[in-house]
């Protein structure tokens, strides 16, 4: 046949029958799927400030690492992003290799949290958790792993308190917010963020989710659900799919003041590059980040373009800088099979070399 098609009606009818069979199987599968719980690893609360809680993860064996590793993720996310299920858990991978892993759970801000600022998040909550660990473990400094916006927070903290961060790992962390391929940044650059926050108060999670889906609208809203049909006869695959769905749509609202400051200083002002980031009374200068830094970015990241993360190299003061370029996207770096093999091992090896 001439043209782009190489199928006849018979083949198309066969394809349709296969689709029908999958949909038919789906009727059974979707009724049988169990509740999709997440959070595969046992954890215990060790510190709290308001709605923010510091958890320690418990692995099957006692940690061999002397210095704890604290994970700080983005405010729009939930902590189980790094511990979704047993075979998709960066936390499990780190524990299995002997790391002593903690995570800060930012909680769900409500209207009474509207006036939380970046100073609250970075100094009070993140700093409070770090100080708790330093006190509890009698250490001057701990290891910090920041993910996405949590990585930006970690960078700010490390620049403001370099003596308290022994090693810094950043994952899919935006640094240069004005690279040409940063769609989210393009959208907020002419946003009147004062008007926005004054009007909305806290920024609703559903609105944030809609914006994130709009970054790849056809893949994330159409193709993904057409692809769901392929796995409808596989209960486990459907449960994995639903667990991911639950995670993606389970987002906290954003505290208004912190959102305002983050958009102004980071997205609009590009403060890591241009200067001008102020957290409370402190000015953030990445040149003061002198501890060893491992920077992990995703090659197909549609939220934080690799160029945005890679800018870190030229801005920090550290002479000990390492990069890991991960083949995957912003989500895959936590949950894909490749991530489970590469990410915890890389972090562990890198930390181990610096623990002597």
């Amino acid at each position, binding site marked *: 046949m001439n043209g782009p098609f190489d199928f006849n009606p018979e083949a198309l009818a066969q394809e349709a029958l296969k689709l029908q069979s999958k949909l038919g199987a789906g009727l059974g599968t*979707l009724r049988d799927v169990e509740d999709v719980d997440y959070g595969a690893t046992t954890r215990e609360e060790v510190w709290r400030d308001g709605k923010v809680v510091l958890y320690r993860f418990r692995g099957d064996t006692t940690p061999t690492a002397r210095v704890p590793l604290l994970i700080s993720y983005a405010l729009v996310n939930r902590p189980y992003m790094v511990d979704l299920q047993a075979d998709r858990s960066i936390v499990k991978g780190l524990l299995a290799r002997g790391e002593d892993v903690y995570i800060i759970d930012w909680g769900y801000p409500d209207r009474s949290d509207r006036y939380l600022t970046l100073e609250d998040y970075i100094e009070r909550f993140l700093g409070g958790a770090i100080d708790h660990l*330093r006190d509890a473990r009698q250490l001057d400094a701990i290891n910090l792993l920041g993910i996405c916006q949590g990585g930006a927070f970690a960078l700010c903290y490390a620049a403001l308190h370099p003596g*308290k961060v022994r090693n810094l790992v950043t994952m899919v962390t935006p640094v240069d917010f004005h690279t040409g391929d940063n769609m989210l940044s393009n959208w907020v650059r002419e946003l009147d963020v004062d008007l926005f926050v004054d009007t909305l108060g806290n920024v609703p999670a559903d609105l944030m989710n809609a914006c994130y889906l709009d970054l790849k609208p056809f893949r994330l809203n159409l193709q993904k659900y057409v692809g769901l049909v392929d796995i409808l006869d596989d209960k486990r695959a459907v449960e994995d799919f639903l667990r991911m769905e639950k995670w993606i749509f389970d987002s906290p609202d954003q505290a208004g003041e912190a959102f305002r400051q983050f958009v102004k200083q980071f997205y609009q002002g590009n403060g890591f590059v241009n200067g001008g980031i102020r957290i409370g009374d402190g000015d953030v200068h990445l*040149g003061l980040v002198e501890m060893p830094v491992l920077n992990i970015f995703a090659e197909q990241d549609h939220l934080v373009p690799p160029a945005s993360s890679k800018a870190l190299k030229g801005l920090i*003061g550290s002479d000990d800088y390492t990069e890991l370029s991960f083949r995957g996207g912003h989500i895959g770096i936590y949950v894909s099979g490749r991530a489970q093999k590469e990410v915890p091992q890389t972090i562990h090896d890198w930390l181990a070399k610096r623990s002597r």
Partner: protein
Amino acid sequence: MSTQSPAEGFEALARQYWSAWGDAMRAPAPGMATAPGAAFGKTPSWQDAVDWWSRMAQGGNADANAAIERFNAQARDWYGQMQQVAARFAGRDAASADIVAAWKRALGDLGGNPFPDMFRAMRGQGAQGFEQWMEAARPYLDAWRKEGSTWLGMPTFGIGREHQQRWQQLAQAQMEYQQHEAAYNALMLQASQRAYELFERKLREREQPGKQLSTARALFDLWIDAAEEAYAQTALSPEFRAAYGARVNAQMRLRQAVQGEVERTSALFGMPTRSDLDAAFRKIADLERSLRNLRDQMQSSRGSMGNAATGKASARSEAGGPARGAKAAKSSPKSSTKGAAAKKGARP
């Protein structure tokens, strides 16, 4: 009353649909030598089948139900239309331009401006865009506009002058939002036109034997690639940046005007308003902050007194001090022992 179970009902409908489809594909429609797919109108549509399926697939699992809802909202129309376009050209020599023209017509049936229409359709539980607020607020906005339509353009005077002025501003804000929404939609329309061009180019690239598409699904995926590429070009452009910002800002101005009216009405009946709550929350936040500062200062003083008494400086405070002393650490950033900060152009 039917004794069929829901699953049997679906099987029956799907069988009917696909069997009719298969027949339509195999036999030319009356009066047409080579037009497979022309008999679709007489059969239950793909949309009917998926609707039916979605209803039956719903069960007690909320997560599964939400996914089914999204599947139904997204996959039903777009994939169904693409299946039919594929069917129309199956087994024939097909020109890429004809396929794109058929796809364009199919999307035209879904709505005039397919991209924003899709965005509207794809919202649901867990994702609500700016357009959803407009839809939710529309009855109220329309009522206000209707109420004031007779005097909105008139000069304001007399005892109701301030009210009239405010309502005029609200109507103005609504009009401005509509203008910015139109400008945004125009860019989206451009993106969809570009998507058709890219789709055709990608189809042409598949005309060589060995590169041809072998399923309707592959055709659908190719369209997704084209649409995503065209959309990204637009969404990353300076024009889009300006249009997006203007649209959101206009909606915020409109929302503020609406909120103002609601507050005035609430105040009239002695109800607490959002401003009241925000003022209270701000006071609490400020009080909490003052209290923490006091506590930190007290702990810091106690620490200093302890250190002075023992004559020992804490090794930890040399490393930057605990959080209670965070202010001191911040105001005097650690001096660089390696000069690295200076090397990288830090601005201390």
